């Protein structure tokens, strides 16, 4: 009984604060990551050789180095040049850049899956380059990329917990602080886990809904 009161009055309000910070971390990181991903993905398919190479190196680095190391580079490493990021800003930067690298893989795959013939046909019909991108390539490519990018969003939600490692106190951090005060590790981390499960499941439902809304009869896209 006492435990329930403690959880209701101490744990939950504090965790909801943490959840809010987690959401504040996830939303800008996800949006920025998607923008970076689309730019990089497009650069890796359409750009000239030097830009393409640079984009490929970016993706290889940011996918190959663990996110924790990246976080530490932004937070502990940059002061080397006299640049000081707050824990929150360092986390958003690290998440966006890492997430962007993964998004660019899905976008690139989707762009490559559009048959060359369609572009030739568009040219034959007198489409300009931008017009062709806007009304032929992107509507198909973004639909094809959606399942992959959705997965990446779910990964981002889970990896947002790593912000705790650079002392950005979000959901996991709040949980850790509460748990080390009360020694109720099992209970508190089960609740924290449930918070994340709800977030992840909500995101999954939303993405499924979007996929269904955007699906076109006769245009298949692969669920992952």
């Amino acid at each position, binding site marked *: 009984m006492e435990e329930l009161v403690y959880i209701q009055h101490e744990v939950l309000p504090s965790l909801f604060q943490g959840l809010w910070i987690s959401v504040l971390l996830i939303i800008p990181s996800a949006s920025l990551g998607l923008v970076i991903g689309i730019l990089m993905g497009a650069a890796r398919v359409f750009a000239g050789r030097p830009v393409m190479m640079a984009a490929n190196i970016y993706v*290889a*680095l940011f996918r*190959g*180095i*663990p*996110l*924790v*190391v*990246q976080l*530490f*580079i932004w937070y*502990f*490493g*940059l*002061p*080397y*040049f006299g640049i000081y990021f707050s824990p929150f800003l360092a986390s958003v930067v690290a998440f966006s850049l890492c997430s962007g690298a993964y998004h660019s893989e899905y976008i690139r795959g989707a762009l490559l899956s559009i048959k060359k013939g369609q572009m030739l046909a568009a040219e034959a019909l007198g489409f300009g380059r931008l017009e062709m991108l806007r009304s032929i390539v992107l509507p198909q490519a973004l639909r094809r990329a959606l399942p992959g990018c959705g997965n990446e969003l779910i990964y981002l939600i*889970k*990896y*947002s*917990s*790593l912000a*705790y*490692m650079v002392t950005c106190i979000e959901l*996991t951090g709040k*949980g*850790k602080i509460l*748990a080390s005060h009360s020694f109720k*590790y*099992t*209970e*508190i*981390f*089960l609740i*924290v*886990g449930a918070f*994340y*499960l709800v977030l*992840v*499941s909500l995101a999954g439902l939303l993405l499924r809904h979007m996929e269904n809304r955007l699906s076109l009869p006769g245009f298949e896209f692969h669920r992952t």
Partner: protein
Amino acid sequence: MTEGFVAVINALPYMLKGSLVTIGVVFGAMGLGLSLGVPLAVGLVYGPGWLRKIIGFYVWFFRGVPLLVLLFLFYFGLFSWMGINFSAFSAGTIVLGLISAAYQSQIFRGAMLSLPEGQLKAARALGMSDVKAILFIILPQALRLSVPGWSNEYSIVLKDSAVTYALGVAEIMARTHFVASRTYQHLPLYIAAGMMYLLMTYIGVKGLRILEKNVRIPGYSY
């Protein structure tokens, strides 16, 4: 610049020892994930409804909760609640293994489902029991098909192993952070750590590609 370089050179033997710990964590986790993931996948594809539900819940839980939360939950919470006193290294390896099992079960499940259904029927027609058919017909093919997915999973587990630093496992990340906070050469040291991970990913993925070629059956296309 030169100071950073010197710090990296000095710390390198110490960090390389950490890479052995990282390799231990990754191998332990991948092994546990494999030995749990295969039965989970078989249960998911061929098991009765209730078993599928249980495995489905396991997979949903371990794929939905962040690694860091699971590490804290098991290391500080569940393990001590059960009265087991694991070291940080074993706890980290076990938790990574349990998560990897959830992901690997999905890899194997996909591979099993991609095999033509007629094979199981043919095995039954030849008088094989279901267990035999799964062991000798389905699994040998499904495991071969899973190698590419497995190499993906390897690179994910390798990168996730850096998070076990939060429990105090003395792997690459923990050692780098330790040296960095003494020498104040954070940036060069972390970049060196990143390069070590890149190198390990590269070697592992190359090794698995060789494995994929070696286990390929000539004339059997997939």
